[in-house]
C-alpha cells in the first residue's frame, strides 16, 4: 500500500515532464512554463490528498478512543447491574411495564377550555395558507427608520437599475438567439456587432452600477450613523449615469464606437458623464463617512470608498490617449477591462455584502480582520492581472507571466472573503430554508469562490490554450457578473427594500425569481463551457474553422434556453420590485433625527 502510494506520487511528479518532453528546452520563463504550473497543481492535489488521508487517520484514532471510552462505560454499567439486589430490579421492571401500557387520551394538549390568548402572543391565525404548495418563509422582522429622502434615493437607483436589467438582458437574449437565426433582422442598428456592446455596457453601467450605488447609499448612511451629506448630489449622479447608458447605447447602435475595446465602447464624451457621476458619488460618500457619528469606519465603507476612487482612476487611465497607439492600447485594454470588473463591481459588491449579509442574519460578520486582509490583497493582486486576457498575444511575455502569477494569488482575497461569508452563515443554516433572502446570498458566495477560482485557473497558459477565444469566456463572465454580482444585488435588494417600504413581495414570486435565475444561469454556463471546450479542442486538432461553428450549434440552443429563463426571472424581479415600492410614500414613517452615538 505504502509503496503503491509512493509510486503514484512519483508518477504524478514526473507526468508534466513526460508531457512536455518534446518541447524545446529553455530555462527562460521556467516558472511560467505549463509543466511547472501543472506540477504545482499536482503537488497541491497530492497535498490535498495527504490532508484528506491525515483527516481520515485522525478520525480513525478518535473513533478508537471513543470506542474504548464506550466499552469502559458499558463495563461500569454491567458491574452496577450485578451489584443490585432483587427488590430494586423488580421495582424498575414494574415501572417500565406501566410505562409501556400508557395510552394517550387525545386531549392532552387541548383540554376542555376555550382558547384565549391572554398575553397577546398570537399575531396571526391562518386556517388556509395562501400558498399551500410552498413552505412559508419568515417575514421581515422590522421596518427601519430611515429619512424619506434616503428611501427615495435608494428606491430610484434600484428602480432605474431594474429597468436597465430588463432591457439589457432582453437585448442579451436577442443576441443569443442570433447565433441560431442569424437572419432574424436586417436592421443595421440591431446587428450583432453593434448590439453586443449595448448589452454588456447596459448591464454593467446601467443595472449593476446603479443598483450598487443605490444600495451603497443606505450602507454608508447606516454604518456611519449619519445622514447623507448632500441628497441633491445623489440625484445629479443618478441623472448622469442614466444619461450615460442611454446616450452610449444610442451611439453604439448608430455605429459610433470608441474602438471596440470591451466595456470601453462608449466614446469619451459619453463616458465623461459617468466619470462625473462617480466623482460626485465618491465625494458624497466620503463626506458622509468623514462626518460619521461613530469613531470606527465600518469595513463596508472601506470597500465602497476604495472601489469608487479606484474606478475613477481607472476610467481616467482607460480614456487618456497619450499611451494608446499600437499595442499600448492593448496593454491598457487588458488592465481596464479586468479592473472594471475587479475594482468596481467586485470590490463595491463585497462592501455591500459585508453589511447586508450580517444584517440579514442579525449577527456580526465572522471576522473583521479577514475582511481587512481581503481588502488589501484585493487591491494588490487584482490590479496586476489584466494582461491575462492576452496570454500568447504579442504583448511582452513578462507582463503575461506577472498576470498569471498574480491570478493565482487571487486565491488569498477570494478564500478570505468566502470563508468570512460562510462562517457568518454558519450556525444559521436553518435560516436558509426559512428566509427568501439567504439563498441569494449563499448562491452569490458559492459563485464568488467558484467563479473567481475558475478565472484564476483559466489564466494559466495551458487552460488558456484550450479555452481562450472560445465561448468559455462568455460562460465565465456570466458566472461572475451574474452569479456573483447580480445574485448579491438581489439578495441585498430583497433584504432592504421591504424594511424601507414596509411591503413584502409575494414569497412565491421571490422563489420563482431565484429558481428561474439560478437554473437559467446554470444551463447557460454549462452549455457554453462544454461547447467552448470542444471548440478549443477542435482548433487544436487543426480542423477547418467552420467545424467549430457547426459543433457549437446545440450548445447555443441551450444557451438561448438558459438565457430565456434568466430573462423571465428578471421580469418576475421587476414585478417584485414594483410590488415592494408601490405606494410606499403614502405610508406614514417617522423621520426622526438620527440618534447620536459617541464612542
Amino acid at each position, binding site marked *: 500500500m505504502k509503496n503503491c502510494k509512493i509510486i503514484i506520487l512519483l508518477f504524478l511528479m514526473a507526468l508534466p515532464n513526460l508531457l512536455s518532453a518534446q518541447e524545446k528546452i529553455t530555462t527562460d520563463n521556467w516558472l511560467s512554463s505549463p509543466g511547472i504550473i501543472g506540477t504545482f497543481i499536482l503537488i497541491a492535489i497530492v497535498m490535498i490528498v495527504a490532508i484528506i488521508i491525515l483527516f481520515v487517520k485522525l478520525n480513525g484514532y478518535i473513533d478508537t478512543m471513543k470506542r474504548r471510552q464506550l466499552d469502559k462505560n458499558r463495563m461500569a454499567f454491567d458491574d452496577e447491574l450485578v451489584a443490585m439486589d432483587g427488590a430494586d430490579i423488580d421495582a424498575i421492571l414494574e415501572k417500565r411495564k406501566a410505562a409501556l401500557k400508557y395510552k394517550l387520551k387525545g386531549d392532552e394538549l387541548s383540554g376542555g377550555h376555550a382558547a384565549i390568548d391572554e398575553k397577546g402572543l398570537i399575531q396571526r391565525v391562518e386556517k388556509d395558507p395562501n400558498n399551500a404548495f410552498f413552505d412559508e418563509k419568515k417575514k421581515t422582522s422590522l421596518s427601519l427608520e430611515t429619512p424619506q429622502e434616503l428611501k427615495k434615493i435608494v428606491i430610484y437607483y434600484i428602480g432605474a437599475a431594474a429597468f436597465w436589467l430588463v432591457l439589457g438582458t432582453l437585448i442579451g437574449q436577442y443576441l443569443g438567439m442570433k447565433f441560431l437565426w442569424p437572419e432574424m433582422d436586417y436592421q443595421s442598428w440591431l446587428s450583432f*456587432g453593434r448590439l453586443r456592446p449595448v448589452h454588456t455596457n447596459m448591464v454593467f453601467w446601467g443595472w449593476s452600477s446603479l443598483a450598487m450605488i443605490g444600495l451603497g447609499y443606505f450602507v454608508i448612511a447606516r454604518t456611519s450613523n449619519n445622514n447623507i451629506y448632500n441628497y441633491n448630489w445623489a440625484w445629479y449622479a443618478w441623472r448622469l449615469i442614466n444619461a450615460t447608458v442611454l446616450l452610449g447605447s444610442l451611439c453604439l447602435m448608430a455605429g459610433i464606437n470608441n474602438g471596440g475595446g470591451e466595456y470601453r465602447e462608449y466614446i469619451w464624451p459619453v463616458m465623461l458623464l459617468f466619470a462625473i457621476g462617480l466623482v460626485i458619488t465618491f465625494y458624497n460618500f466620503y463626506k458622509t463617512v468623514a462626518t460619521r457619528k461613530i469613531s470606527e469606519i465600518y469595513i463596508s465603507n472601506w470597500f465602497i470608498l476604495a472601489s469608487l476612487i479606484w474606478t475613477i482612476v481607472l476610467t481616467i487611465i482607460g480614456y487618456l490617449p497619450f499611451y494608446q497607439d*499600437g499595442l*499600448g492600447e492593448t496593454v491598457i485594454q487588458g488592465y481596464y477591462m479586468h479592473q472594471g470588473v475587479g475594482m468596481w463591481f467586485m470590490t463595491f459588491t463585497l462592501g455591500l455584502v459585508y453589511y447586508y449579509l450580517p444584517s440579514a442574519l442579525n449577527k456580526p460578520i465572522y471576522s473583521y480582520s479577514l475582511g481587512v486582509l481581503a481588502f488589501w490583497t484585493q487591491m494588490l493582486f487584482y490590479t496586476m492581472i489584466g494582461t491575462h486576457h492576452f496570454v500568447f498575444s504579442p504583448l511582452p511575455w513578462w507582463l503575461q507571466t506577472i498576470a498569471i502569477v498574480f491570478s493565482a494569488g487571487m486565491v488569498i482575497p477570494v478564500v478570505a472573503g468566502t470563508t468570512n461569508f460562510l462562517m457568518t452563515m454558519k450556525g444559521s443554516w436553518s435560516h436558509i430554508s426559512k428566509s427568501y433572502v439567504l439563498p441569494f446570498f449563499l448562491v452569490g458566495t458559492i459563485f464568488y469562490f467558484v467563479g473567481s477560482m475558475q478565472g484564476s485557473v483559466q489564466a494559466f497558459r495551458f487552460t488558456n490554450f484550450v479555452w481562450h477565444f472560445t465561448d468559455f469566456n*462568455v460562460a465565465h463572465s456570466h458566472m461572475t457578473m451574474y452569479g456573483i454580482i447580480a445574485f448579491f444585488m438581489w439578495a441585498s435588494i430583497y433584504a432592504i427594500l421591504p424594511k424601507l417600504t414596509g411591503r413584502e413581495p409575494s414569497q412565491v414570486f421571490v422563489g420563482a425569481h431565484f429558481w428561474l435565475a439560478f437554473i437559467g444561469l446554470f444551463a447557460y454556463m454549462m452549455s457554453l463551457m462544454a461547447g467552448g471546450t470542444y471548440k478549443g479542442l477542435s482548433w487544436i486538432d487543426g480542423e477547418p474553422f467552420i467545424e467549430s461553428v457547426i459543433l457549437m450549434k446545440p450548445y447555443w440552443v441551450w444557451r438561448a434556453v438558459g438565457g430565456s429563463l434568466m430573462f423571465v426571472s428578471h421580469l418576475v424581479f421587476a414585478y417584485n420590485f414594483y410590488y415592494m415600492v408601490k405606494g410606499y410614500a403614502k405610508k406614514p414613517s417617522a423621520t426622526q433625527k438620527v440618534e447620536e452615538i459617541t464612542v
Partner: protein
Amino acid sequence: MLNFHKEHKNLVLTAGGVFIALSILIAILPAFQMQETQPIPDEQPLTAHEREGLNIYVAENCMACHTQQVRNIEMDNVWGNRPSIPSDYFYSKKRMDFWRQSPSILGSERTGPDLTNIGKRQPSEDWHLLHLYNPRAVVPASVMPSYPWLFREVDSAFMSKDAKVVAVPKEFFNKPGKKIIASYDALRLVDYLKYLKQTEMPSGDIDDFIPALKKIQAERAEGGNQSLDGAKLYSQVCAACHQDTGQGIAGAFPSLVGSAIVNDENTETLIKIVMQGYNARTDYGVMPPFGDQLSDAEIAAILTHERSSWGNDSAPVTEDDVAKVRQYVEMELNK
C-alpha cells in the same frame, strides 16, 4: 500612525495612492513602452481608402467576433505564417479621430475566423462582397450577420457604369430587372480586408509556434510534409468559393464537378488558372491568383483532390507538373 479604522483620510489616500502606483507600473509604463514600437521595413501603411474601411470595421464592431492576433501556439498557424508581433499593428492601431481611440482590433473572441491574413487567404473582392451581402451564400453554416445596408438595390437600366455589381445567387436575391450593387462603404471595407496581410520578416527567421499535439509534432519530425492532405488544403483555401461539395455557387462561383478544365487530361490550363487567377467568364466572379501563396506540392495535392472527388475521376497531378508550369509562367512574365 495610519489608523485606517478611524482615519478616513489615510484610508482613502493609501488605497488611492497604492492603486495609482501599481497602475503606473503595470499599465501606463508598459503601454508607453509598447508605443515605442517601429514598423517592419516592408510593412505597408494604410491608404486613405483602407483607413476608411477600418473605420467601418470598427463602427460595425467586427472585433466582437473576429480577432487579429496570431498567437505563438501551433493551432494559430492556420491564421498566419508567424506569430504576430507588436510591429504588425504600427499603422492600423492609431487613434482614429478626436472622438475615438485606437481600435482594439486584437479582439478577445473568435466566433469567426482570425483576420490577420484574410487579404492573402481570400484575395477575391467578389467573394468578400457576396460574403458581406449574405455570408450564407458562400458559407452555408455561417452565423455571421448579413450587412444589406452596405449594399443597394438598383434597376439594371439606370445603373451607372462604374457601379460594382455583386453576383448574388438566385436563392438569395431574385428580383427581375434589379441588381445588387456595393455601396462606397462596402468597397472600402473590402479594401481594408484585402489590406490585411502578414508582412514578411526581412531576415526570414521567425519565432516558432509552441507545438500543441504530439501527433503533429511527430509528423514534423518524420521529415515534414511528405504527404500533404489535399482535402484539408482544399477546404482551407478553395472551399470558401467552390464549396466543400465542389459544386460552387450558381451565379457566383463555378462548379468543379465534371468541369472540362478540371478533368482535362492536359493539366496545364488548370494549373495556370490556380497560379494566375481567371477572369474569362462574365457570369462568374473573378478568381484570384494563388501562385505566391501555395507551393508546388500544395497545388498538386489540391488539384489531385479535385480531380478525384465528387465523381471526378482523372489522373493525379504531380509536383513536377506544377513546377513545369510555374517555370513556364515565370519565363513568360520575364519576357
